């Protein structure tokens, strides 16, 4: 802790014996460079991942997932350098697909975004320690995040309830079948509640309109992208899936509803939005720039009634990597 290696919570000492077990479960050589992490531009080796995983309490079996997550975050299009420096409260959220969800007990049902007793917070914490200790993100040194977010301590790690989804798994739709991890630059999590609606259109309308709050980064004229992640509970997903079996139709509906009339904004905000071509012919501004930027997945408890929305920061592009299990 005195070395500045930690997050303030107790750490498990990364002894050689403990690290060796993690390395064994990775199936990789310790000195293999997985990625270069920004802003420090340092090489992240398998051994560094193992050491930080031990410190965080992440199980040795999670090493393949951790390695894939590092690969995803290090993709240039994920823009880790500015993500780590920003005044925004962005944190890479990790969505896990494939059988590995079951093997690693990654939560995807009730309480999946927090509160389930299992390894997900420790896996998330391992990645946060890597970002601190290897990438070099330290508050007031290389990070100016005005508020930060609880997700910067134990990460946001959850799975998709594929078995309840009427659509193909998110990872597959993003190019990776089976075991996959998707890194998404999330501005935290927020809740949408609907206890009145009972049709697909009701739910999609409530989701879309709830997403479109004026202070969302997606509305910033300077935001290059407006990717948006929506985790729909399995009860709503069944209703929506019957009405819209093609996921593209769901994306289009949410895109259409996630808009505000330009008159809702003070004139000082209108000119820059208009200048960058975001004002539509119908006088509305869409939060999301194109329907493909809506990422829909199924997760959450059978209690339904709620939906989770994770707005994006607006600069990173979501990346998906396969999780390669050791032979």
């Amino acid at each position, binding site marked *: 802790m005195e070395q500045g290696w930690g997050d303030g919570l107790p750490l498990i000492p990364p002894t050689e014996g403990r690290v060796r077990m993690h390395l064994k479960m990775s199936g990789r050589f310790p000195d293999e460079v997985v990625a270069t992490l920004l802003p420090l531009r340092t090489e992240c080796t398998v051994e560094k991942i193992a*050491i930080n995983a031990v410190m965080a309490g992440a199980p040795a079996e999670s090493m393949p997932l951790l390695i894939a997550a590092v690969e995803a975050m290090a993709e240039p299009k994920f823009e880790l350098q*500015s993500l*780590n420096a*920003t005044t925004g409260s962005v944190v890479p959220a990790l969505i896990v697909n494939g059988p590995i969800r079951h093997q690693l007990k990654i939560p995807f049902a009730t309480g999946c975004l927090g509160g389930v007793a299992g390894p997900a917070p420790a896996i998330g914490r391992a990645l946060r320690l890597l970002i601190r200790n290897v990438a070099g993100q330290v508050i007031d040194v290389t990070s100016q995040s005005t508020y930060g977010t609880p997700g910067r301590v134990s990460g946001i790690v959850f799975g998709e309830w594929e078995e309840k989804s009427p659509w193909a798994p998110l990872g597959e739709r993003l190019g990776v079948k089976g075991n996959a991890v998707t890194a998404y630059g999330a501005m935290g999590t927020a809740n949408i509640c609907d206890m009145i609606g009972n049709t697909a259109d009701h739910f999609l309308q409530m989701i879309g309109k709830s997403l479109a709050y004026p202070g969302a980064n997606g509305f910033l004229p300077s935001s*290059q*992208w407006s990717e948006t992640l929506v985790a729909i509970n399995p009860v709503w997903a069944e209703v929506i899936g019957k009405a819209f079996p093609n996921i593209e139709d769901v994306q289009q509906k949410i895109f259409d509803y996630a808009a505000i009339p330009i008159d809702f904004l003070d004139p000082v905000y209108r000119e820059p939005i208009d200048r960058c071509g975001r004002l539509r012919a119908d006088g509305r501004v869409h939060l999301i720039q194109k329907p493909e930027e809506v990422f829909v997945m199924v997760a959450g408890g059978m209690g339904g009634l709620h939906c989770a929305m994770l707005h994006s920061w607006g600069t990173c592009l979501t990346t998906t990597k396969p999780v390669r299990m050791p032979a």
Partner: protein
Amino acid sequence: MNRGLILDPTSHRSDDISDPGPDLESLAGKVIGFRVDELWRSWDWVSEIWGQMLERDGATVKFWRARGRTGEVGAHVIEELDAFTDTLDAAVVGLANCGSCTSWTIHDALWAAKKSIPTVAVATDHFEELAGNLSRRGGRSGLRLHILPYPLDIRQKAEVHDIARDHYRSFLRTLGVRDRLAVQPAA
């Protein structure tokens, strides 16, 4: 008490260029490029005043506006940055006035500085430390920084123009201009 060996979870880079790079020396006949952005009107206002004053003092001024940093657009922006900095005798890169824009400002300033042209990254006071830390971690702790007051973006245009005029000569000194322009009282 039992003592055991624990392994280091951190990684470090040791390479560093602490030299600020070449001075501009004089302005006459030099091509000075401003990297502006899509975020800060206040930086547009500062750079337009500095640009006018530099031209008055004999330099030629060019502007280039940075845009998105990821995807195909991001790759194109880097190509543009590379081509732009190839045409310059000196680069002025801003504005480091938030976390991410500081990272991009320093990134682009390091891009110019590696071409051995006098380069100044411009930051506001609150983001000076971040800019310094990122340039050091980028391998060039000696990168020249010019610091403007903070907050800048909530000031009116006339006030920002006054700040630009007040800072002009100290900005020239940061750029390494050593002749009378950098030291004489403002006109």
